[in-house]
């Protein structure tokens, strides 16, 4: 707050009054400014937890000029409408459902922790509803680059789709072709793995390919099914890349992933740009690589330290 020097001819009372008036004016100006600067950015997640609250705080710390607050889901869902300049950051597919149902308001929204398959299940075509996705699953091209780095001479790549993820097939095939590889696909029927033909199809697929590339589709890869897939794949001395870093502990060879700092950076970059420039969807630009070294050694694959791979991949980075 700056102080104005008063002309010395005014009386003290008048000076005080002027001072007060200017102060009030200043306050109102400042208030109006802070109201516009302090437009709300509301962050909410499917489940309330200390982790989410901490994340909000950390994000806010990186953007002190923004008014980033956390709102529990129950409170959020009671809101019928939002101020015109409110921005939402929502985590999880259930909040995506809620956001799609919102009729009276259309606040610009960044969707996180939603994968491409999950989004596709809810939205068939692009909708310009001020909705921007920051995909939770790793970008296909990045996973393919990782595959190429770890197993340079592989040509035949197996990919398993379900009815929910088959839409990714053309994109995957193109991306693999650009990397000089050939896609062999198996598509699960509506019954998924409980279809008795599924395992036979899997075996036939794995017999004719050299590696399995996973996509984040819970119908295909989930805690119950991962064992059978991994064991069949490993029995043929083949690796599974992806679908996400969470599966690396199970025995997948490797996957790229984005950690908390990476998400914050991505959000930060987006929040600093005007909402009408927000893209329909992006992948976070920062990433790391997680490798199961024991599995790599067992399969005779050159063992890299995760930092090495991350650096190598970043040099080749393609922006999806």
């Amino acid at each position, binding site marked *: 707050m700056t102080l104005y020097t008063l002309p010395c001819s005014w009386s003290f009372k008048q000076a005080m009054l002027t001072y007060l008036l200017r102060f009030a004016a200043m306050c109102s100006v*400042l208030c109006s*400014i*802070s109201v516009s*600067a*302090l437009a709300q950015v509301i962050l909410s*997640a499917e489940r309330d*937890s*200390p*982790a*989410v609250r*901490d*994340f909000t*705080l*950390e994000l*806010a*710390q990186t953007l*002190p*000029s923004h008014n980033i*607050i956390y709102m529990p889901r129950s409170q959020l869902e009671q809101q019928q409408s939002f101020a015109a300049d409110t921005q939402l950051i929502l*985590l999880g597919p259930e909040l995506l459902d809620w956001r799609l149902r919102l009729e009276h308001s259309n606040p610009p929204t960044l969707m996180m*922790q939603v994968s491409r398959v999950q989004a596709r299940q809810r939205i068939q075509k692009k909708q310009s509803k001020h909705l921007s996705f920051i995909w*939770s699953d790793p970008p296909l091209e990045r996973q393919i680059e990782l595959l190429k780095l770890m*197993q*340079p*001479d*592989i*040509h*035949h790549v197996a990919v398993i789709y379900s009815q929910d993820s088959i839409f990714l097939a053309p994109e995957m095939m193109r991306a693999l072709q650009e990397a000089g590889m050939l896609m062999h696909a198996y598509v699960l029927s509506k019954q998924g793995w409980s279809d*008795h*033909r599924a*395992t*036979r199809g899997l*075996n036939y697929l794995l017999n004719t390919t050299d590696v399995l590339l996973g996509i984040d589709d819970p119908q295909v890869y989930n*805690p119950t099914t991962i*064992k059978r897939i*991994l*064991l*069949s794949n490993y029995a043929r001395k083949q690796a599974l890349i992806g679908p996400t*870093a*969470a*599966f690396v*502990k*199970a*025995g997948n060879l490797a996957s790229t*992933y*984005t*950690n*908390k700092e990476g*998400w914050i950076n991505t959000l930060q970059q987006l929040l600093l740009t005007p909402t009408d420039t927000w893209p329909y969807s992006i992948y976070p630009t920062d990433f790391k690589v997680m490798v199961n*070294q*024991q*599995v*790599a*050694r*067992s*399969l*005779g*694959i*050159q*063992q890299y330290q995760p930092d090495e791979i991350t650096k190598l991949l970043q040099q080749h980075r393609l922006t999806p």
Partner: protein
Amino acid sequence: MQQIQTKRAYLQPSIVLTSLLVMATAESGYADDLFFSDQAIPEVLTATHLYQPPAAVPGSVTIIDQQLINASGARNITDLLRLVPGMLVVPDSSNLTTVNYHGTSPGQARRLQVLIDGRSVYRAGFAQVDWSDLPVALEDIQRIEVFRGPNTVSYGANALLGVINIITTPAKDVHGTLLKTNLGQNGIRDWYARQAWHSDRTDMRLSLSGLTDNGFDKRRDGSDFRDSRRLSRFNLRANHQLDERNNIDWQLAFKEGSNQVNNNYSSIFAKKLQLKPGEYDNNSDGQAKDYAGSLRWTTAVNSQHSISLQANAQQWERLREWRACDAQISFEPDLNELWQISSAEQRKELLKTQSMSKPNARQQELTNNIKNIYIKYADQPLPHSCGLINENSRELRYDIELQDTYSVSDSLRLISGLSYRYDQARSRTFLNGRQRKDIMRGFSQFEWYLTDHWLLQGGGMFEHSSSNGNSFSPRLAANYMFSPAHGLRALYSEAVRSPDMFENRADWRYKVRDLRPTVNGNSAADFFISSKSNGQLKQEKIKAYELGYNGHFARQRASIDIKVFEEKISRMISHSPRLESFNLNNNDQIKFYGSELEANWQATHNDRLRLSYAYIKERASHKLDQKVSPPHSGSISWLHNWGSHWNASLMYFAAQQPDQKDLQLATLRLEKMLFIPNKRLTVAGTVQKKLNNQPIGRTNNKDNSHDSVYATVQLEF
């Protein structure tokens, strides 16, 4: 407390945020869980579950995978073993084949450990492997792993020259129904049926199969070779995932069948006998029944530590009874007694000259008695009687093994275990009753990554046998890994083989029953020639050295394994036991040296090539072991996918046989798969041919009489 930032144009943190910031604990690991929750996902490929990459294996291993098994068109496991470099497969008849690694007399093929799913299948009493009688169908085999070299540490007793590990398809990898039949020349009529069931935690597969063929056509001398066989098998395997950590896999296997064997019995008095047809059996076919059950329980204590317990029970029943004739004099009690009290040299003389030198008083007396009977028939045929003799045996084995796999750290893994085995054999003819043996065994081995490139592996097995005392077999290997895909290895191992119950406890005598006509009023008598083991046999011992290289070239999709080796077996039991003179001793030895090569190349997406080659030199002290090992032998295989579900394969085997012309075998197979809605039909034709007129090994079969052509039809749904 957050400071007011003056660096930017408009910064007034709201009061609400400030207070929140004051409360912030900011533990960064916490918020990580938001994006990375892997708690629900199980660890599948745990440290104890992972297998070694080929370049790190402390030895040479050949894997015959399912693709090779199908492409070979083989109907017998022994045909598949020709693909292993250095393996000698010698058919004595169609239903009796012996398999040896590197050499030693085919008649003594008992120096290999053979396992089916971890269950040792060489016979309890006779240490031989009846390949045709194994209760496993080829269609149930997922792969065969052959460890070329001694390895009692990992595979237990009898693994003197090598280990053949037959691994059947687990129930979870089998789906639906499969029906198959082979029909062809040589009386080939095989069938196979399989069904699988799956539920949430249980998988089960049942297979029934049968095999029939006429075997070889002619013997070496041109006479008909009666060596057909007929058999049926039953195999049930199930797997139960009890909970996250515990798993049980069990199986029941059963095989029954009969093998034709000519009646080869000929009397020493043959020239003086006039036998009438119908008095004796032309044939002495055998019935063979194998029963087996095993159960394996595996538990994962944690991701670093797993324990498994396997229990097996097996029974072998071999029944072979036939009517044979001999001079009545050979059943005389006096002659029996004379034989019993005579020494080995005297027995030899007796058979040659009907008299012996330096007889004692009793021997002289008995010789005179016999001579008096014999002289009566100087110009006439001797009177004969015909009775039933048998070579029946019933053997049984129980064993239990506990194995502990513990990953001490990322670079050290320990595998240790204890096992107990009980063997029993009953045979009137061979053992004069029942013999038993039990073995306790403890083993431990370590895999230690000294650095990223140096791997040291070693171990030892200690065995206590009720019949052979104690023994210890150590093993040590060092691998240098250029990269995870290429490695050099150097290893030294020792192993022992205990003589089997027949070798060490034989009491071999033919008791004849139902003699017609009776002899001295008796319808049962003992045939005078018999022999007994002196029970002094000691364990055979092997010392082996090996240097090898194993590499996998990912770009070329090729892998290669080369080794040079030297093996020395000492205290070897080489003599072939005969009824007239058992004479087994540990006085022999053999030394092998040479090199072996195995290469696999996926040349194109549609072509697979495989090459195996062995160069073996042997130096044996006993005649039976000499000139057995082919100096050069090997195989070439080409598998080709023509597209539109047509597949073809061509395999060629060759071996240079000492003192004979080369052995050359070829197999050609053509297959077409047809997809009918929900069903898959496979039709295939296989041709097996000997390319030159040469019998395999020094055995009975003649020329190209084992060529066969047969068709296969298979339906899956």
